[in-house]
């Protein structure tokens, strides 16, 4: 376990050093992201300006949902985004390298990216979040900060679990991009808006299926001191637990996938 953690950190460090050689990419990434998100912000504010509010949420509050989702995505991208391209590794036989080394292949896969690749997203996410909490009038207390930390970890794990699942499906189908774009990406887009604008089915799917509602919708209630408005206020405090459970389940599926991969051969 300790050996695995040590190796993970060393490998990630190595990836970071490698990444530093491509500094231009980093800036290009930040600029393209700012452009994309600005467009979405403008669309969002146009909508709320026009209608005053969306399903009982003011513009500032909607922006907070949005910012929480982006914040979680910032952490998830830094740690897990490379899992989306796992099918390339399988197809090119690169993953076999991990199997002939005495280290858990899952650790080797996770360590295949440096957090620097996601830094642009993360810096932008944090800035957007701070700005949004200011506008939404969030009153900060030490307890809320601690809570936010738990939400950040839990959310990163929830999104991480989704990306680990995508890579696990790659073992069975030799495809990963398609699962990201057809499942994870649309679900992420859905939670950019308040959950209560959707039908019951969608609300349930985003709570127990792909539990992305725990990333922003439920936690935002606590930050805005409105947890009591939820049908079950407890939901607002489950994010870290959901994250851990989802990630463990995704890892389980990944191990099953590995077994099938080794059994079937390619």
């Amino acid at each position: 376990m300790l050996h695995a953690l040590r190796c993970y950190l060393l490998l990630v460090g190595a990836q970071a050093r490698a990444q530093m050689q491509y500094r231009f990419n980093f800036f290009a990434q930040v600029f393209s992201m700012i452009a994309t998100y600005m467009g979405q912000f403008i669309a969002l504010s146009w909508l709320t300006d026009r209608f005053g509010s969306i399903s009982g949420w003011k513009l500032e509050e909607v922006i907070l949902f949005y910012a929480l989702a982006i914040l979680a995505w910032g952490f998830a991208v830094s740690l897990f985004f490379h899992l989306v391209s796992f099918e390339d590794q399988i197809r090119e036989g690169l993953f076999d390298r991990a199997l002939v080394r005495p280290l858990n292949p899952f650790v080797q896969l996770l360590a295949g990216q440096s957090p620097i690749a996601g830094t642009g997203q993360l810096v932008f996410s944090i800035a957007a979040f701070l700005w949004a909490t200011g506008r939404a009038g969030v009153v900060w207390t030490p307890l809320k900060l601690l809570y936010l930390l738990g939400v950040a970890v839990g959310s990163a794990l929830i999104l991480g679990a989704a990306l680990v699942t995508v890579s696990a499906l790659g073992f069975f189908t030799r495809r990963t991009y398609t699962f990201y774009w057809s499942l994870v990406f649309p679900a992420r887009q859905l939670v950019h808006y308040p959950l209560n604008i959707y039908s019951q089915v969608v609300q349930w799917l985003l709570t127990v299926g792909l539990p992305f509602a725990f990333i922003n919708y439920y936690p935002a209630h606590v930050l805005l001191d409105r947890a009591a408005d939820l049908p079950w206020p407890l939901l607002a405090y489950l994010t870290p637990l959901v994250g851990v459970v989802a990630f463990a389940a995704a890892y389980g599926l990944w191990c099953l996938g590995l077994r099938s991969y080794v059994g079937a051969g390619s």
Partner: protein
Amino acid sequence: MEDVMITVENLRKEFKILRRRPGFLGTLRSLLSPEYEVRTAVDGISFTIRRGELVGYIGPNGAGKSTTIKILTGIMVPTSGRVVVDGLVPYERRVENARRIGVVFGQRTQLWWDLPTIDSFELLRHIYRIPAGVYKQNLELFTDLLGLGEFLNTPVRQLSLGQRMRADLAAALLHNPRLVYLDEPTIGLDVVAKERIRRFIKEINRERGVTIILTTHDMQDIEKLCERMILIDHGRVVYDGPVEEVKRRFGQHRILVVDLEGAPEEVSVEGAEVIRRENGRVWLRFNRDEISAAQLIHRVGQRYNIVDLTLEEPEIEGIIARIYEEGV
């Protein structure tokens, strides 16, 4: 037995390939009622390899070479059969097996592409938990033998193919593996670079007693390095024995090349087969057990006027190519 490194008994591997139907409806039907095609990649292979052997494992593309190597390294589980490598079943104890073996895939590097070569070695030191003393000693030795010094600080992606292969070899041996799989370690290299790699392979086999399984398409690798070769085709062992023996067993054919005066229309000689003609030049293949070269030259000389001639001895390259094409 103590001195056995690898035992393979009746190894079989079948692949199930999903039969794809054309069109969107076809895709839908494939999804609902998948039909599989079974392809047998390894069809009952058995062999034993002793500690310290250097064995050439060869065969044409698609013969089942890489499938066998994948099973031996623990990357793949066989359909049936028994495999024991250094006392372990590799696919059941993959991590433990990985600690004891070294692998070089000539076609893809094991090194970290964007980092200086030395960084890859450092990372492997931690992954394999190589004691500091062993690491230092090996690094010095390999740097010396393989001339790594000139590019230790160069990023791997900037290395020439030969340099990269040398670095890959060193990387696979840093943790003192008892057994090394070399998959086409000389592919794409020039003559000088090949020679250097071969010297090194020979050296670690002799001096350190490392067991080596070498797969290659370069028959010179086999002739210069291996005493024994296992030749497989269509998933079966078609030859397993000394490299020299192959020439004796499959290389009875020699070729007499004669230049004939006046380029006769029809050329035929008893006891030999015309395999090629170019104007007056004729290639005659004959079996050394049936007729001697002198006899054949005499016979040709009786019917035609010979201007010039050469005798071609069978080369292992040609023998293997013929086995690939025609079977044993």
